[in-house]
C-alpha cells in the first residue's frame, strides 16, 4: 500500500518538477526570439502568410540580423479565434519566452494579445489588426502597430465623399463587430465634418453574408451614397449582390480598401469604378515600392499586397529599435523612443509612428480599374489616428 502510494507520489513530483523546469529557459544575448502569432489556418490564412513573408523579407533586407542578433522564429497559429487568444499568447510569453511578439490579423485576437503584452511588458508589433483600442485605451510603451487603425481609411473616405464627391446623405452597412463599428464611426466623423449626414447604419451579424433584405432597405431609402465595410469573402459577396440588385448604377458604393483588396478576381465587373481609401495602392510607382514589389515577387513567386507591406514594415520598425539599443531588448525605454523618432521608409511611402505608436501616414484614394486598385490621388496627407483613450 505505502509502496504504491509513494511510487505514484514520486512519479507525480518528478513530472511537476520537470514541468516547472520546462518553462524556465533564459533568453541570452544570442538569437532574438520572435513569436509570430498569425492565422495559419482559416479564412485569413493568405493574410497571415503574406505578413510572415513580408516580415522575413524585411529581416533579410537588413542583412538577416536585427541589432546584430540573428532571429529565431516561433510560430503559433491563432486560428483567428479570440477564445483561444489568451492561452496562445501566454504560450509564447511564458512557455517559449519570446522577446518580441508579432501579430495578428483579427482584432479580437489582437486585443487579447495587447492585454497580455501590456501586462508582461513584452514588445508587441501589430502588423494588421486595426482595432482602435490597441493604440487607444490599451496603448503601452511596448506596443506598436505597423498597419493602420480602423478609423484612418474610413475618416479619409468620409471626407472624400462629402467634399470631393459632394454627397449629402449616406447609409452605412457592415458586419457587427469592432472593426466594422470603428470603420463606420470613422466614416461618419469624416462625412459629417464635410457637411454630410449618415441617415441609417445597417448591420449584418458576423460572418453572415445574407444581404438581400438590407439591400432592399437601401434601395427604398435612396441615399446619395453607401459606405460598406466588408473583407474577404464577405466583400466579394456584397459587391456582387449590390450589382445584382442594380444599385451600382444608381447609388455609388464607397468603402475602405478591404472592400476591393485581393477580391477583384472574384468580383469582376461588379466592382469596376468603385472608389476606396487605403494606406496602400497599386501603381504608386515610387522607387521604394517598385524595388519592394520586385524583391517580394522574386522571393515568394506572389504579388505583394498591403499585408505583406505591413509585415515588411514591422521588421523595419523592429530593426530600428534594436539598432538603437544594440540588440538589448531589455532597454525598453530607448527601444520605444528610437521608433518614435524614426521615419520608416515603407513601400507605401514614408511614415512615422505617433505618440500612440500608430502609423501617421498618407491615405490614398483608389479606383477599381480592371484587376487593380489604381491610385487616383491622396485622400488625406499624414493622417494621424486621434488615439482616444490612450494614456501614455
Amino acid at each position: 500500500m505505502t509502496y504504491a502510494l509513494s511510487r505514484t507520489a514520486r512519479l507525480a513530483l518528478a513530472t511537476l518538477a520537470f514541468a516547472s523546469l520546462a518553462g524556465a529557459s533564459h533568453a541570452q544575448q544570442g538569437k532574438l526570439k520572435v513569436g509570430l502569432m498569425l492565422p495559419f489556418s482559416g479564412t485569413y490564412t493568405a493574410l497571415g502568410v503574406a505578413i510572415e513573408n513580408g516580415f522575413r523579407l524585411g529581416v533579410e533586407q537588413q542583412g538577416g540580423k536585427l541589432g546584430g542578433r540573428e532571429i529565431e522564429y516561433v510560430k503559433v497559429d491563432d486560428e483567428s479565434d479570440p477564445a483561444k487568444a489568451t492561452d496562445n499568447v501566454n504560450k509564447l510569453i511564458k512557455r517559449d519566452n519570446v522577446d518580441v511578439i508579432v501579430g495578428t490579423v483579427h482584432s479580437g485576437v489582437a486585443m487579447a494579445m495587447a492585454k497580455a503584452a501590456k501586462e508582461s511588458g513584452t514588445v508587441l508589433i501589430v502588423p494588421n489588426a486595426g482595432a482602435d483600442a490597441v493604440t487607444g485605451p490599451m496603448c503601452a510603451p511596448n506596443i506598436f502597430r505597423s498597419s493602420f487603425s480602423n478609423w484612418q481609411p474610413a475618416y479619409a473616405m468620409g471626407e472624400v465623399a462629402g467634399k470631393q464627391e459632394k454627397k449629402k446623405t449616406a447609409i452605412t452597412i457592415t458586419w457587427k463587430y469592432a472593426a466594422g463599428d470603428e470603420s463606420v464611426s470613422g466614416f461618419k466623423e469624416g462625412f459629417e465634418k464635410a457637411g454630410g449626414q449618415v441617415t441609417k447604419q445597417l448591420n449584418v451579424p458576423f460572418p453572415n453574408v445574407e444581404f438581400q433584405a438590407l439591400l432592399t432597405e437601401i434601395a427604398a431609402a435612396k441615399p446619395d451614397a453607401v459606405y460598406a465595410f466588408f473583407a474577404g469573402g464577405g466583400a466579394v459577396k456584397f459587391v456582387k449582390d449590390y450589382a445584382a440588385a442594380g444599385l451600382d448604377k444608381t447609388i455609388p458604393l464607397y468603402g475602405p480598401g478591404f472592400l476591393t483588396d485581393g477580391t477583384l478576381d472574384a468580383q469582376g465587373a461588379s466592382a469596376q469604378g468603385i472608389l476606396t481609401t487605403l494606406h496602400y495602392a497599386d501603381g504608386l510607382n515610387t522607387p521604394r515600392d517598385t524595388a519592394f514589389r520586385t524583391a517580394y515577387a522574386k522571393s515568394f513567386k506572389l504579388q505583394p499586397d498591403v499585408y505583406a507591406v505591413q509585415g515588411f514594415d514591422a521588421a523595419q520598425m523592429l530593426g530600428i529599435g534594436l539598432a538603437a539599443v544594440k540588440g538589448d531588448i531589455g532597454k525598453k525605454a530607448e527601444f520605444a523612443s528610437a521608433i518614435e523618432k524614426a521615419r520608416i521608409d515603407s513601400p507605401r511611402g514614408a511614415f512615422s509612428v505617433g505618440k500612440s505608436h500608430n502609423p501617421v501616414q498618407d491615405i490614398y484614394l483608389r479606383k477599381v480599374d480592371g484587376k487593380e486598385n489604381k491610385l487616383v490621388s491622396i485622400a488625406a496627407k499624414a493622417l494621424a489616428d486621434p488615439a482616444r483613450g490612450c494614456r501614455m
Partner: protein
Amino acid sequence: MRRLDPFLPLLCAVALALLAPVLSPYVSDFVVKVMILSIFALSLELLVGMTGLVSLGHAAFYGIGAYATVLASGTEGGSIALLLPLAMGSAAAYALFVGALSLRTRGVYFIMVTLAFAQMAYFVFHDTKVGGGSDGIYMYVRPTLGAIDMENRGVQFYVVLAALVACYGLLALVRRSRFGAALAGIRVNEQRMRAAGFAVYGYKLAAFVLAGALAGLAGFLLAARDGVVNPELLAWHNSGEVLLMIILGGLGHLRGAIIGAVAFTLLKELLSTHGFVGPLADHWQLTLGIAIIAFVALLPKGIIGIAARLSPKGST
C-alpha cells in the same frame, strides 16, 4: 489506499496548495485554467449527473458570469465582494428565466431548447453594444478585496483553488442532503416522484438555478484570470465540451467532473502540440472528433468506469 479514498480530493487540494509556489508560470497558468474548468464541469454535473437534465446550453451561464464581471469592473476595477455575487447572481437570474421555460419540456426538446436559449444569450453579446461585439471586451483592473489582489498570479491561484474546494464541498453536501436525494429520485423516475407528492418542477428549477450560479462563479474566475472575455465563451461548442468533460470523467461522480476536466484539457493540448502528434497537430479537430466518438462509444462510464472495472471488488 481504500481508506484514504474519501480524503483523496482534500489531499489533492492540499498538495496543489503546497506546490503552487514552485510551479513555473506556464504550468501554474495551466493548472488555474483546469481548476476553473473543473468548477464549470462540477456545476453541470449537478444538472446532468445528479438530476438527469441534459443541458446543451450551460456555457451561457459561464459566459454571463464572465461578462458581468468585466462590465461591472469599469475603468477602476471592482471589489470581489461586489463582483462575485453579481456574476453568480446574473447567471442565476438567466438560469431562472431559461429554466422556467425549458423545464416545461422534456428529453430531446429540453436539449434543443437549452441550446437555443444559450444561442440567444450568445447573440446578445455577439451582436449588440452590450459587450464589445464579436471581439469581446477586456478588463482594466482585476478584482480585489482588501489584501487579496487578483492581479497577483500567486493570489489568483489560491483564490481559484479555494473556490474549487468550496464548490466541491457544497455539491458533496447537496448530494448527501434531502434535496440531493430528491434530485436523485427525479433522475431515476420522475413519474414516481411526482406521484409521491414531490414538486418535481420546483426541484428541477432549483437545481437548474444552482447549477447556473456555480457556472457563473467559474465565469467570474475566468474573467479574473484572462482579463479579457469574448462571446465564444457562450458558444455551443463550449457547452458541448463541458458536457464531454463530465462524460469523459464519469457521470454521477463529483470527481468525475474534475477528472474529466483535466483529461479533456490535456487531450486538447496534446492533440494540438506538434511535439506529441507531429503533423496531425494541425488537424486537431479530426483527431479530437474521432477521440470523442471513440470515448463515448467505448467508455460510456468514463474514466472512473475504467477504474471500477479494473478494481477487483468493484468499489465506486
